[in-house]
C-alpha cells in the first residue's frame, strides 16, 4: 500500500496540539508504516511539499505571514484539517481581538518586560514603537482557519485528545472523511 503524505504546521498556536499528536504513543508506531511526514515542526524539511495528501493545521490565522502561508498550504493539500481549538475557533489567540494591536504589544513587550538597564525616569518615558521590520505584521484580529480557506475536517479541542487524532488519521487512511462529532469538543 502506498503511504499517504502527511504535512503538519502551526500558525498562531502553542504547539499543544502537536504534543497531543505525539501522545498517540504506540499509535504512532501503528501509523508509521502508512504515513510519510513531508513537512512540519516535528521534522526538518524547510519548504512545504508540492502536494500533501493530508495537512493538519494548528493555530489561528493571526499575522500577514499566516495569511500567505495558509493559502499556499491549501493549494498544495488534499484534505485540510483544522487541528485544535485555535484553528477552529481562534481560541486563546483570539482573546486579543478586543484590543488594538498596539495595546497588545505594549502590554507584552513594554509593561510586562523587565527594563533593568533603564533608570526609573527613563522607564516612564519609554514608548512602544511597532515597526514589524523583522517579524510578520500582526493582523488586526486573529481568526479561525476556515474564514480564509476551505477546511475539510474540523478537529476541535484544546488540545484534541490523542484518541480523536488517531481516529481521524485512521479514517483518512481508510479513504474516508471522518465524522468527528461526539469524539472531541471545544475546550480542554
Amino acid at each position, binding site marked *: 500500500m502506498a503511504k499517504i503524505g502527511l504535512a503538519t504546521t502551526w500558525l498562531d498556536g502553542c504547539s499543544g496540539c502537536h504534543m497531543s499528536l505525539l501522545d498517540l504513543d504506540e499509535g504512532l508506531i501503528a501509523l508509521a508504516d502508512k504515513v510519510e511526514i513531508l513537512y512540519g515542526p516535528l521534522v526538518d524539511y524547510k519548504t512545504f511539499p508540492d502536494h500533501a495528501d493530508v495537512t493538519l493545521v494548528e493555530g489561528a490565522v493571526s499575522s500577514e505571514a499566516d495569511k500567505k502561508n495558509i493559502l499556499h498550504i491549501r493549494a498544495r493539500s488534499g484534505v485540510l484539517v*483544522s487541528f485544535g*481549538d485555535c484553528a*477552529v*475557533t*481562534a*481560541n*486563546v489567540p*483570539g*482573546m486579543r*481581538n*478586543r484590543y488594538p494591536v498596539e495595546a497588545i504589544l505594549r502590554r507584552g513587550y513594554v509593561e510586562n518586560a523587565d527594563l533593568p538597564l533603564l533608570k526609573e525616569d527613563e522607564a516612564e518615558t519609554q514608548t512602544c514603537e511597532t515597526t514589524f521590520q523583522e517579524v510578520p505584521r500582526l493582523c488586526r*484580529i486573529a*481568526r*479561525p482557519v*476556515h*474564514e480564509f480557506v476551505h*477546511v475539510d475536517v*474540523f*478537529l*476541535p479541542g*484544546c488540545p484534541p485528545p490523542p484518541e480523536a487524532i488517531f481516529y481521524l488519521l485512521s479514517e483518512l487512511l481508510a479513504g474516508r472523511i471522518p465524522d*468527528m*462529532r*461526539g469524539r*472531541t*469538543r*471545544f*475546550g*480542554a
Partner: protein
Amino acid sequence: MSHHLPKKLRTDLNPSRLLTFKIDGRDVSAREDESILAVARQNNIAIPTLCHLDGLSERGACRLCIVEVRGVAKLLPSCVTFPRQDMEVITNSERVITYRRKILELLFTERNHVCSVCVSNNHCELQNLSVELGVTHVHYNYLYPQLAVDASHSRFSVDHNRCVLCLRCVRVCDEIEGAHTWDIMGRGITSKVITDLNQPWGTSETCTGCGKCVQVCPTGALSEKGKSVAEMIKRRQFLPYLQMMRGRQEESWQK
C-alpha cells in the same frame, strides 16, 4: 418577571383538562397546563434546552427547545408552548436539528466563549450542547465584543464574555431568593444582565450574597472567586426542594 401567573387552584369544580396528542408519532397524554417540553420529558423524549431549569419558571429565552407542530409554519419553543387535543409535534426533524445548531453557533459567536481557559470548562452546559448537537465548528464570523468582568463582589464574579442571556440568575434571584437583584438591560444582542441599577455587584444593596445565581448559571459567566480553569462545579439539586418548601409556606399563609 414581576408578573407571575397565579397558580391555578385545581379543584373538582375547576379540573385541569386532560388531552391526548402526538410527539414524534407517539400517542401521549397530558394535562392542558403542562408544556410540550414537560410532556416530552415524561415520555423519555429528549429535547435539548439551555435556559430551562427544573424549579424555575419558563422563559423561552434560548430557543434550543424548538419543535415543529404540524400545520404551523413557525418553529415553536416547546418550554412555553402548550399542547392542544390531537396536535402533532415533531422534535427531531432535519429542519429542527439544523436550526438548533444554528442557534447554538450564534450563541458562540455573540460573546467570547473561550472554553479552554474557562472556570466552567468540563462542567458547562453550552460546551456539552455543542457535543450533543454535533457542532464541531461555527459557520458564522465571531463578533469578539468588548465586555467587562465585574469582580467587585467579595465572593463571586460575573464575566459577561461567557453569558448566554438565559436569565436563570434573574429568575432564581426573583422567584426563589426573593431579592430580585439581577435584571436585564438593553435589547437583542446588546442585552446584558445587571445587578440593581446597573452598578457594580459589590455595591448592590439588595444582593443577599446567597450565591443561587452562581449555582444555576449554565456557563462560566457567574462563578465563585478563587476557582481556576475547570474548577467551577455547580450544584443545583437544592432548587426543586426550595421551590417545594416555598410553596408550602405560601399555602400556610393562605390558611
